[in-house]
């Protein structure tokens, strides 16, 4: 045993307390956003001969486009954090829009769908839209928890059915002629209303996810459902809440969208679900659940918006836009994956 004694040193009992500076993942995504903006600015001066950023109306269009997708993406982010997915949001936008729109028409419009429901105060169509969205979300959540089918399938079913409801509700004819009061939802505050709604929603849910029990439960379920259960969390009830709230946000997005463009169509919201998921993923939300932040998703949505606007600004063909967009989404996930691997290897 002598060799042992020789090589033995007293175990270092004092704990190492070296505080590492932690940079939140959102900062790096924000840098990407800044980088892309600067890139378009430079390319703009070279190829178009004008500034990309110093153009108020362009910035307003970018952020307006982002608002609708952004509101949806906030709900989708919560679902993804629980380890789920929501493919139905685009179709639910159309369904909520079509149903709510029939409650929002003005009696002065020549093609009124239901004459008994004209000139109602704006809260009625708004409430109807939110309720339809929340109901769809509730059904998604109920299917996921009570029948145990994967969220992918449950929301795929909802995606197809909700689109069907949207078409059937008015036999495919679009609904327009909203009351001025309702149209304010999309145009008040010098047309900044959707942006204000988006920012308010983002702040509320950022706080909810970080500082409330609801948020903590959401992360815990996504990180490890079994451990969450043993920690006393009622998983089914919580998941249904999350899906219903996400649905509610989809309903809200639909209201903002139709109020802004002043018409509801059964075909609207196509591919919104994928844009929302893309915004979350670009924003660092992990598809395996348990990781991600609302702030990241907001930045992710902005990146998508800036890209779209930048391509149009540079007069890049729409086909190329889609090709590049796809590549960006995949790149974002690759980077995220590597970041996670690095996290694991540091110890």
């Amino acid at each position, binding site marked *: *045993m002598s*060799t*042992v004694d020789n*090589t*033995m*040193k*007293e*175990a270092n009992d004092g*704990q*190492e*307390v*070296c*505080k*590492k500076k*932690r940079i939140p993942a959102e900062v790096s995504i924000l840098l990407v956003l800044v980088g892309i903006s600067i890139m378009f600015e430079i390319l703009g001066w070279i190829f178009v001969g004008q500034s990309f950023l110093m153009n108020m109306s362009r910035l307003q269009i970018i952020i307006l486009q982002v608002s609708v997708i952004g509101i949806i993406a906030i709900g989708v982010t919560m679902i993804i954090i629980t380890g789920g997915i929501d493919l139905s949001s685009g179709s639910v936008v159309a369904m909520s829009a079509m149903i709510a729109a029939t409650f929002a028409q003005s009696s002065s419009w020549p093609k009124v769908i239901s004459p008994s429901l004209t000139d109602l105060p704006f809260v009625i169509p708004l409430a109807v839209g939110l309720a339809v969205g929340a109901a769809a979300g509730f059904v998604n959540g109920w299917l996921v928890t009570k029948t145990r089918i994967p969220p992918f399938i449950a929301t795929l079913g909802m995606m197809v059915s909700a689109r069907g409801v949207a078409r059937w509700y008015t036999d495919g004819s679009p609904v327009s002629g909203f009351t001025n009061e309702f149209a304010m939802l999309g145009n008040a505050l010098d047309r900044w209303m959707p942006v204000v709604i988006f920012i308010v929603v983002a702040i509320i849910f950022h706080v909810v996810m970080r*500082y*409330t*029990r*609801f948020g*903590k*439960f959401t*992360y*815990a379920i*996504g*990180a*490890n459902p*079994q*451990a*969450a*259960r*043993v*920690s*006393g*969390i*009622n998983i089914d009830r919580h998941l249904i809440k999350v899906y219903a709230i996400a649905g509610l946000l989809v309903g809200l997005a639909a209201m903002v969208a139709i109020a802004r463009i002043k018409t509801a169509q059964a075909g609207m919201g196509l591919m919104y679900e994928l844009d929302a998921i893309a915004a979350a993923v670009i924003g660092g939300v*992990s598809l*395996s*659940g*348990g*990781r991600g932040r609302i702030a990241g998703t907001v930045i992710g949505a902005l990146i998508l918006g800036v890209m779209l606007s930048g391509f149009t600004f540079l007069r890049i063909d729409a086909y190329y836009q889609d090709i590049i967009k796809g590549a960006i989404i995949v790149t974002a996930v690759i980077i995220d994956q590597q970041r996670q691997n690095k*996290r*694991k*290897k*540091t*110890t």
Partner: protein
Amino acid sequence: MNSAAVEETVSVSGATPPRDHSCEYVLEVVNVSKSFPGVLALDDVQLKIRPGTVHALMGENGAGKSTLMKVIAGIYQPDSGEVKLRGETITLETPLKAQQSGIAMIHQELLLMNQMTVAENIWIRREPKNAFGFIDHSEMHKMTEDLFDRLNIHLDPDAEISTLSVANRQMVEIAKAVSFNSDVLIMDEPTSAITETEVAHLFEIIRGLRKQGIGIVYITHKMSELFEIADEFSVFRDGKYIGTHASANVTRDEIIHMMVGRNVDQMFPKEEVELGEVLLSVKNLTLEGVFNDVSFDVRAGEILGFAGLVGSGRSNVAEAIFGVTPADSGTVWIEGEEVHIKNPNDAIMKGMAFLTEDRKETGCFLSLDIQENIQSAVLHENFVNGGGFVDQAKLNIESEELCRKLRVKTPDMEEAIENLSGGNQQKVLIGRWLLTHPRILILDEPTRGIDVGAKAEIHTLVTQLAHKGVAVIMISSELPEVLGMSDRVLVMHEGRVTGILDRSEADQVSVMKLAAQ
């Protein structure tokens, strides 16, 4: 180099190929160092394995055992130093190269394809082909049977892996390793999840392999296994090689001393505590097909040990009491009042806490940080206000203080829990339940897979809790732990309570008698 081992030998039906016994060591690791960003995982270590011996690798979590094994198995490349197989230096760029050179590793988390059959798993990439170049399933079946005969394994080659128990999956892994005619077989804590009978069978197979001249590297945390199966052992600590000894002439205390670097004088710091009122009383609890008619009491300040073989229903009783899988019939009383616990939340509200058996599966939130992990069970009460807002400031202070008390080794509370060692993870999980200030604490395998130092700390902590009047139920597969810590020992066998022994009458023999009937 042994050419028979290099080529992918398909036929194992014949006799074992002759092994070259001329070398003193079948495997030698010389001055190997390996570092990761910020950590020197292996610091100039060595290891020498003789053919036909079982060589145990001992050390606390984080000592470098796993890293060293990954170097030998070709998963990591060493920064410096060399690995010699049968006296010749080899470079192992990939796990496949290591496997083909005759080094096989059986990982703790078994790496089998669950949806494929036993035979398919064993012969993957080496499937026998018929004249048309298609896979010859009947030949593969026969080859598997021959292999199993040699190893005395009784499994259906066509069974799907997902239908097998953990122990049987391990047998498949061993058979697969042997099918490569490996010279060196590395086993990483093979007994951590299997029953005592299965352990006996495993040891039988290991002895058989030893007789065939294979050098077996055996990583374990269990001291008793070292004395039972190992011929020699090497100790590692903090990435450094401490020494190699024959297991016949050392004592338990000496090994612990080498592993920890200091004396762990008292393994079980049991103290006499004045017992209080009966806090928890379980009467005739039954869950059809799992356990039957289970009754017992636990008093304030008492530690009630649960002993019994794996699969005897110990953990199921705990899960039923805590509402994870509620029982079909029977009653649970807390402080003389009957309670109806339908889910874990009810149990927490009644002052119960439950450290589950499987740290990874039902304990940790691996993607979250320490803070979030330690706080997950207290979001129901004192720390949440009316609006559902969490009193983060107050909670953070309490959790940080607790981590300090539990001596969790971490730079800060925002460290991801997956970056902690097993022992530290366990401390965080225990912290999670202490934060709820439980009156009844159920610990299921509180020290499984964690190192000696952390073990002793957890035992001390449990003793302190008993002092404060907490009623503790401690389930453990390690009999010395149950005997050392408990005031009374409840023994289960096939879902029934076969006896409750007082501390004075409980010993290895009396407990095993009740446990094995």
